[in-house]
């Protein structure tokens, strides 16, 4: 029993290392690297600090609930978030426990290869800024479906966008819930099911009562804690080496079993098709994540939207540099200390794979090594807070798609009061939370490693093409978006199912019909060509309305004239 539990913990923590999720990690190696987990002893400092965080965020939720009166408050914090706050909140929404523990763990295990992931995770942000952010702010109100359906037919387009949103949210949420349950079990000694229920209950409370205002502040606080904690750890590492990276690397090369090879690319990238496909999914998937796109409606105008991407890129880039230092610090400070390892009877241990709790625990152990039990408690609590902030953002995005897109526009055809729409959104948040708890429970012992990769692939292949084509090309028609977007969604999911990650590793077949783990190169092409071709061939009456309405949309998207203004409080 115990061994089974350990292996599952290992598998799922490796899921947290999105590396494996996106299929370019040498999976055998990654899986091996996490062997030998085990529950941490009850960690009192961590629990106290975690409760302090929960108490603070519940206080904020109470405060936010009193300020949340209108639909604009609930979905978009009344547009009253400043660029700096939004930059932090975006960073808090985006930097998951996967980036923190997964990338530092990957650096710990492989060195340079960890950097390749960080880079992929960051480069989507400039693209969002150059092509999407201000048009989104100028055209939309609460969800990205507002933008896509600006001139296209509301009912069908919003249905498609809502399905795209909910698909991304579902896969992302399952991966986060399972990861959260395993992580909390490991860090706090709390049983898996309780941990999943706790996470689900908190995210329901934040979203249902506090809406976007509470979600934003949870993300801001989490971003500050995470950036602060990671900065401290990186500083403590650098101090030990007199702020000389060369001294740090030299010591790491000396200690690491892989020696000098940790300073260069290993076998993370196998073939060019996989490399490009992964790169596309990372870059454009980021630009299609509904909970991220939603954040651009919380600021007053396009100017603030642009600035918030600039700040967010800075925070996220800085954070990834820190994780690189933390990973190398973990190599130098942990690998020679048997205290952090599952040591064999002969006193020997594998310096990479025998790390207690697996390689994804490298940053957690390092916090103990540089700051003692108190700091260990702090970083454990931060890891938990990190998950909460991400799932809250996802839940809000999912609830908004249900209430604002499906309920208000598709079911009630716009004939619904603001109050009622917000009430539906709150109920949806509760339902999504409960579904997430149930799915988290069901998937406890499943391999969810592919799910975050799938979420990014769907975002890149459905949400992003649909959004980009509707704002950039006047010829786009309702039918084109509908068919192209649907093909992108279906092909990305189907190709992932047929890929080695699912077909072979989850279903246990011998060979996968689709040889690449990431479908983005193919499914994005299908979506873009689909939208273009169907729009070109579309001779319907609706197509004439769609193309005729482009001019007004174009002027507004470029200038913001007529755009939704911030609500004064």
């Amino acid at each position, binding site marked *: 029993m115990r061994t089974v539990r350990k292996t599952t913990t290992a598998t799922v923590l490796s899921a947290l290392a999105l590396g494996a999720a996106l299929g370019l990690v040498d999976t055998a190696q990654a899986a091996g690297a996490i062997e030998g987990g085990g529950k941490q002893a009850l960690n009192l400092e961590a629990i106290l600090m975690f409760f302090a965080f929960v108490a603070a965020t519940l206080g904020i939720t109470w405060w936010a609930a009193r300020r949340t009166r209108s639909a604009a408050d609930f979905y978009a914090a009344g547009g009253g978030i400043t660029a700096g706050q939004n930059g932090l909140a975006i960073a808090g929404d985006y930097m998951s426990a996967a980036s923190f523990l997964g990338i530092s763990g990957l650096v710990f295990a492989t060195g*340079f290869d960890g*950097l*390749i992931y*960080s*880079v*992929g995770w*960051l*480069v989507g*942000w*400039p*693209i969002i*800024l*150059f*092509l999407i952010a201000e048009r989104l702010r100028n*055209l939309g*109100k609460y969800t990205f479906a*507002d933008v896509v*359906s*600006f*001139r296209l037919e509301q009912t069908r387009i919003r249905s498609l966008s809502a399905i795209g949103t909910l698909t991304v949210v579902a896969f992302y949420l399952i991966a986060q819930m399972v990861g959260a349950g395993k992580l909390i079990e490991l860090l706090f000694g709390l049983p898996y099911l309780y941990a999943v229920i706790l996470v689900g209950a908190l995210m329901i409370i934040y979203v249902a009562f506090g809406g976007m205002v509470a979600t934003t502040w949870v993300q801001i606080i989490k971003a500050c804690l995470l950036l602060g904690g990671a900065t401290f750890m990186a500083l403590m590492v650098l101090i030990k080496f007199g702020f000389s*990276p*060369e001294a740090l*690397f*030299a010591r790491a*090369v000396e200690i690491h079993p892989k020696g*000098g090879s940790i*300073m*260069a*690319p290993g076998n*993370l*990238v196998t*073939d*060019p098709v996989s*490399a*490009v496909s992964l*790169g596309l999914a990372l*870059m454009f998937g980021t630009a299609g994540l509904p909970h991220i796109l939603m954040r651009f409606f919380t600021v007053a105008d396009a*100017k603030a939207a*642009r*600035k918030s*991407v*600039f700040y967010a*890129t*800075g925070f996220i*880039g800085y954070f*990834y*540099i820190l994780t690189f230092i933390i990973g190398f610090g973990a190599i130098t400070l942990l690998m020679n200390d048997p205290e952090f390892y599952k040591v064999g009877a002969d006193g020997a241990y594998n310096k990479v794979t025998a790390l207690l709790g697996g390689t994804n625990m490298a940053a957690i152990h390092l916090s103990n090594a540089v700051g003692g039990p108190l700091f260990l408690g702090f970083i454990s609590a931060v890891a938990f807070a990190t998950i909460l902030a991400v799932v809250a953002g996802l839940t809000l995005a999912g609830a908004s798609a249900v209430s604002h897109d499906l309920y208000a526009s598709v079911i009630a055809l*716009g004939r619904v009061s603001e109050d009622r729409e917000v009430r539906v959104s709150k109920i949806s948040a509760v339902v999504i939370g409960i579904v997430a708890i149930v799915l988290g429970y069901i998937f406890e012992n499943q391999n969810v490693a592919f799910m975050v990769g799938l979420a990014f692939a769907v975002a890149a292949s459905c949400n992003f093409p649909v959004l980009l084509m509707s704002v950039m090309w006047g010829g786009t028609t309702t039918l084109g978006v509908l068919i192209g977007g649907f093909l992108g969604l279906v092909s990305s999911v189907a190709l992932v199912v047929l890929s080695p990650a699912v077909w072979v590793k989850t279903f246990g077949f011998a060979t996968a019909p689709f040889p690449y783990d990431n479908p983005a190169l193919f499914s994005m092409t299908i979506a873009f060509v689909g939208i273009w071709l169907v729009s070109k061939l579309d001779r319907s009456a609706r197509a004439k309305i769609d193309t005729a*309405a482009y*001019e*007004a949309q*174009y*002027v*507004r998207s*470029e*200038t*913001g*004239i*007529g755009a*939704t203004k911030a609500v004064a409080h």
Partner: protein
Amino acid sequence: MNQGDAVGTPSYDTIKNDPQFQELVAKRSRFAWTLTVTMLLIYFGFVFVIAFAPSVLAIRLGSGVTTIGIPIGLAVIVSAFLLTGIYVRRANSEFDADTQDIAGRQK
């Protein structure tokens, strides 16, 4: 809801025919696409070197263990930040000033 914001509905025709609007859109789109392509080239350049010539990144700097791959990887991260900075700087001054001029003529 979107199309229905009837309060002070601006005349999109006049804006579209405004030479300053056309100039703004042309220069901004040129600028945005140039930066987009730059980012794509930097990132996929990095990815292709890793895929086809990983040994290039393993070249050591001087006598130490630090390889050229480390500063290059960090440079990609920093370049993403700098490119967003370059865009925001111009968009929030020059482009926004143009937009205000254009909007001002609508009153």
